[in-house]
């Protein structure tokens, strides 16, 4: 792995005061990440029970059919397939390049954009089998010192 941890984020252990434990709570760096109280994290989509559409963000009604029935959380990934991608050579100032920006159809029906690591850019192809790996979102801490939880993709098998 180039950076980050796999599968599970261990929130730093703080003193047992409410304020301190809040400060050590890991924060999701992406709308599809859910962090449990124990610090473990998964990727979830939100599924419409009426039409089956799966989206990443918390909409107020289903954006596919307009249903007001609350969307259900569904686990997505970690497996998936590359739908499209680009190799980014110029980005915003300070962003290391090159990197592979990939659109991945995850198992469970959720599509996410993410950075694909652990493969030569020229080896990426449509339907490439990949896995989403939970990471520490580049190791950035928020202004209160709390870590973030993110994800990236690797070719299937590379992350084992």
């Amino acid at each position, binding site marked *: 792995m180039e950076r980050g941890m796999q599968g599970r984020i261990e929130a730093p252990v703080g003193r047992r005061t409410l304020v301190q434990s809040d400060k050590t709570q890991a924060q999701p760096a992406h709308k599809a990440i859910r962090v449990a109280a124990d610090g473990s994290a998964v990727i979830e989509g939100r599924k419409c029970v009426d039409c089956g559409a799966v989206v990443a963000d918390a909409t107020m009604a289903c954006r596919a059919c307009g249903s007001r029935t609350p969307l259900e959380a569904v686990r997505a990934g970690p497996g998936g397939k590359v739908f499209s991608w680009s190799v980014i050579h110029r980005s915003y100032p300070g962003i290391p390049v090159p*990197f592979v920006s990939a659109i991945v159809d995850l198992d469970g029906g959720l599509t996410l954009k993410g950075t694909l690591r652990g493969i030569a850019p020229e080896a990426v192809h449509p339907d490439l089998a990949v896995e989403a790996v939970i990471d520490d979102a580049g190791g950035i801490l928020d202004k209160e010192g709390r870590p973030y939880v993110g994800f990236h993709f690797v070719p299937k098998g590379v992350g084992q």
Partner: protein
Amino acid sequence: MSDAFIVGADMIRFGRHPDRTPFQLAAEAALLALDDAGITIREVEAIYAGSTFNSASMVAQRVLQLIGQTGAMCVNVSNACAAGATAVRQAILAVKSGEYDVVLAVGAEKNPRGLMGGPLTEGPPPEGLFGSVAPPSIFAEAGMVHASRYGTTIEQFAKVAVKNHHHATMNPKAAYRTETPLEDVLASEMIAWPLTKLMCSPNVDGAAAVVVVSERKARELGLARAVRVRGSVLVSDPYEARAPEMFDPNSVTRLAVGKAYEQAGLGPEDLDMVELHDCFATAELLHYENLGLCGEGEAGRLIDSGDTALGGRLPVNVSGGLLAKGHPIGATGVANIVEVVHHLRGEAGARQVEGARIGLTHVLGFASVAAAGVHVLEKA
């Protein structure tokens, strides 16, 4: 309900205008369009101004502050890259409603410099951590879907830039007017595979304006140089399963153009020219299919054939397009209408599409969600 006619259309030269405000650019375009129509600001009853980065500053009123504060109704619209087309469409609707006879639509922009975008979100900046959100990446990924499905090559995408830069050499209002052969396009800096720098539209400043009038006013001014609006459509993007993670420029464009063909009572086979939204070279090939200019998967062969170059069966982006004329966001959707109007009048000079009678314009605005505007214009 009156038909709407365009009787005045002009633009300033696109490029860098560091010493001028967006309002001055807009006012200059407005004066050019009024002169083209042979009317004065005193006859204008309403103004719609499209701008993305400057809209909050009341561009329409600032134009009147510079050229005559007549008390005309002013509406300022922002709709990403579709802002200009939105302003024109609102002007058309205002005339068709019967309430106004003479309406001015202006699009103007001073673009920010450098790579656009970069969301203001809490938490770590997503760029690089979660793929790329920069516009070239988004249109590179959209192009790679086509490449994966149909075998479209980087050379075919690059030929769009070669063609449109060639067209711009004949357009005195274009920002970049040099021939750019295929090897130059391919050798320029790689931005987001398969898009090199010359396959990305440049951020420049600009303004364009049109005068839209009722049939009664058009007849009063004389129909010789008038252009009839056959179709005017603006839509937002319908639900797509992968969006917004995978931006989809296709379904929103198809929705708009389908309605426009229906409104105009014609189809792609009736068009003599097209100005479409080539914000990136990949986009032009996608839109060949979206607009029905060729069958599914045939866009690569269409650019290879030369049919979409000036002199070909259906010239596309003879203005130079966004790639070479430049893409001042809010002005773009007005400028491509200005281009078609000049051709329908036979006044387009060296790049004139011979005998052009019907033309189509298309813009696509996006910022995680999209808008598409399509206009079908016919020589009156």
